[in-house]
């Protein structure tokens, strides 16, 4: 039932548009975002993730990020986006 998206290693400028398209395709059902391969997360893809998160919340569907890689966790924290994208155990006032 639940859809899944496996994030690519490199979430840079070029990845943003395909990522958005992938999310739009899967709209309407619970989604699992597999972030275990991510080695680089850029600002644009962050925006897509944030917007997707918002969209799924509006739809009342579950949105979860599964097994985030260390790089993903670290960059998300760096962006100050841990509250939106990471589950509680990865959050914290990391600088």
């Amino acid at each position: 039932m639940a859809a899944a998206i496996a994030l690519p290693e490199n979430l840079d400028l070029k990845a943003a548009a395909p990522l958005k398209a992938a999310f739009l395709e899967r709209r309407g059902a619970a989604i699992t975002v597999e972030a275990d391969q991510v080695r680089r997360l850029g600002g644009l893809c962050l925006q897509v993730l944030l917007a997707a998160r918002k969209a799924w919340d509006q739809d009342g569907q579950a949105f979860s990020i599964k097994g985030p890689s260390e790089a993903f966790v670290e960059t998300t924290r760096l962006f100050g986006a841990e509250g939106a994208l990471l589950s509680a155990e990865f959050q914290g006032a990391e600088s």
Partner: protein
Amino acid sequence: MDELEAIKVTFFQECEELLADLEGGLLAMQEGAGDLETVNAVFRAVHSIKGGAGAFGLEPLVRFAHVFETLLDAVRSGTVPNTVELAAVLLRASDILADHVSAARGLGDVDMGASAAMAAELETWTDPNAAPAAHAPLVEDAAPVAAAPAAASVSGVADDDAMDDDDLGFVFVPQTITVEAQAADAEPSNVWTVSIRPKSDLYRKANETALLLRELSRLGPIKATLDDSALPALGELDPEAAFVTWSVRLETEEDESAIREVFEFVDGDCDLEITRGEGGVQDAMASLLAVAEAPPVVEAVEPAPAPAPEPIEIIAPAPVAEVVEPVAPAPAPVVEAAKPAAAPAAPAAATPKATPVEVPGPGQSVIRVDPERIDRLIDLVGELVINQAMLAQRVGEYGIAPSSNLAMGLDELEQLTREIQDSVMAIRAQPVKSVFQRMPRLVREVANMTSKQARLVMEGENTEVDKTVIERLSDPITHMLRNAIDHGLESPEERKAAGKNPEGVVRLAALHRSGRIVIEVSDDGKGINRERVFGIAVKKGLIAPDLQLTDEEIDNLIFLPGFSTAEKISDVSGRGVGMDVVKRSVQALGGRISIASRPGQGSTFTLSLPLTLAVLDGMVVDVAGETLVVPLAAIVESLRPKPEEVRPLGPVGSVLAVRDSFVPLIDVGQALGYRDHSPAPTDGVVLLVEGEDGSRAALVADAIHGQRQVVIKSLEQNYQQVEGVAAATILGDGRVALILDVDATIAMRRRDGGAPRPTEPTLIAAE
């Protein structure tokens, strides 16, 4: 499930390292070296433990770690002054944290009362005004925190609004946790607020906000707060336009120009506002919001054909690349290497390792390997060594000339085997630091309990020793240290009366000597009261009252089973575990322990252990028809004595004149009970050996076969301990040979005075 368990195991391994880091950092803080870097490291250790514990739902651990972390965060931000008293409290807290980790691992219990009291104490430090209410949140904590170990809910600091009951803790409200908590307090002068509003061009020119933030974090700890209020809904989102903005709280000793320098290459592609202090956060955000709400960046809409050909006026693309290059790929190798072979195991395994923004240097990649794999590798290399020796022996039997290609090839093989062996052993070698690190606390605790003043001096923490040995060092060292403080050091009054510094010094040292690792624990206390020790040994029926003993022998009586000098059993060292237990556990490792004492000046425990329990360089000798291996490390020289050099001493003994001194002659065959009567030493070969205490002896053997590297096979594990024999090995021809324990052989001779060894089961190496 198994996979989860495996990840959990990794987590606990990391916890051990993190706890060690934590203690190291706290100790540095206690000694006044609490710079920001140290505080950060300490914070990260606790934070990472909390993070991992959260992933496994280890609630009590998460709760305690959270309170701990909150205080550390306050120290880090300067809200709570970093003092020596604080460090002492934090050290105690780290003890309890370690207890929680052990408990979570199923290796013990946590004194929940002590934990709650400590949590309350930590909270009082975090917020002195909250003192009276300090217990309230704890009661609340006792109720299990539903499915989500949402650690932040415990906090008195976290902004409630920032938390959502959604299990992801999903928030779009700008997170002002840290900022708000600190705004109330006097703000440190080195705090800056940097507002960053990237334009779409920034991304189009292959620049990246993440890199800017990372560069900023190099100047000091940062906390970024993102604002996504201008972000359109997913359907309307132009994926290549910039909407999100950031406000960064930066703490740095650097000046504004250093901060500006970070943005040098994105000048014009990013609206930047730098203000001192954090009061400006709200204002700055407001002003940025105003801009953001203006018609959304029009130029962003024009589609950028993949990597837009850079217009010429763009500031030098080369330097941009320079900034990007070193930073971006850096964290990758660590993550890569840390991944176990099975990739899916990576996600959670990686998480507790919350490596902070300090980008790891390119050389710091670390591989985690299951120790069992290394052990297996070492075993295999051991077999390879035996096999190579067998091959060499066969070739020798065929009488092949040493200059032949075959013999030369074999030599090379031997060389290679040896190198492989060394490298493999080096993988498992670790500095004793990991064990030593735990000792300063122990010394403090024991000193407190016994009302003594003690200072620990450590030497040789970087001495490396095989992991198998290191794991077993902790208990004997702990015991020896306790003993040194409890029994060795005098009370401050007694010390003053004796004209000594009221603060006693306990020294813990590690060094390599004669191919073994030697651990020394010495104190500058009163030394052993020999009369009393002798008296107790007689009273307990351990020795005959008329026995004549040297001072050294009396000192070593304390290792006798059933001996305990403490008349009143103390809390510290009299828990029924005597030095005899220590001695037995050390012996089981092929080690030895001894004590030397000088009245009024202190005692020194010396513990010596093999560097590895795997291989040994030895001299193969023939004794009474048996083949024995004498550890090469102990041999000083080998010689054939002339008749005039051998002098009788006493009824049965004899000594050998070697240059200017006389050394006792020991017939190995007789010492091990292979024969009753020694042949004349002049008929055999003499190996001049040196024991660990520096004493020399001349071992008589019948013939020498040459040097060989042998793989140690434990005799204790496969048979039992045999006095005078350290272990066994398998020779090239497949025969088992015993490895001689040189020190024990010398000690036996001293004790028995050279008399033939009484009835002892004769151990004959099997064909």
